[in-house]
């Protein structure tokens, strides 16, 4: 089963608006990562939040983590057309320090 599940599956917003994507997971984690994938390309790491952190910022990205609810959110502020991509959360698999489990992703479309 999927460790990470993103919500919504698809999101369409106007340029300049904020975009919020959510991720839920099932087991305890050490950290949670967000990745971005432009259409037809590989994934690019955006940000990592540790289990003892509640919020982290990187440029226009803000990630929150609620371990009691087993959920995380990714906020992109002042979105741009170039932010159009799929966004995935990933968690380290229980018992494996090397393997990540990816969710099925949120497809974000930012309209100019």
């Amino acid at each position, binding site marked *: 089963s999927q460790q990470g599940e993103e919500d919504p599956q698809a999101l369409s917003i106007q340029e300049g608006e904020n975009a919020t994507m959510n991720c839920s997971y099932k087991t305890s984690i050490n950290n949670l990562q967000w990745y971005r994938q432009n259409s037809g*390309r*590989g994934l690019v790491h955006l940000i990592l939040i540790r289990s003892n952190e509640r919020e982290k910022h990187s440029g226009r990205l803000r990630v929150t983590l609620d371990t009691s609810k087993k959920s995380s959110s990714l906020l992109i502020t002042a979105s741009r057309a170039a932010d159009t991509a799929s966004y995935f959360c990933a968690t380290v698999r229980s018992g494996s320090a090397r393997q*990540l489990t990816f969710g099925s992703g949120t497809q974000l479309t930012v309209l100019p």
Partner: protein
Amino acid sequence: DVKVTQSSRYLVKRTGEKVFLECVQDMDHENMFWYRQDPGLGLRLIYFSYDVKMKEKGDIPEGYSVSREKKERFSLILESASTNQTSMYLCASSLLGRGLEETQYFGPGTRLLVL
């Protein structure tokens, strides 16, 4: 910057052909991974390797094999390609770090079509 390259961006093969997908990383990473990505199914791990000549099965290894003869190169082999192996194949690498904070670095992907 870490660079992960894959031998082909697009590949068209016939059913029954043997297919080799090559992946090379230039950052001396210990771990390398092969995923396939299909609409609605997300990324699924096929095989991974944490050292030269070492390999471990992922979630969907059937119909695939891998080879890691050198640290920087990880090859995915489709012994006898079938139409259900038509997919986007993504290679990734990561450093064997401490604290379980292993960011994976991805190649651009190979879109394989099996006819």
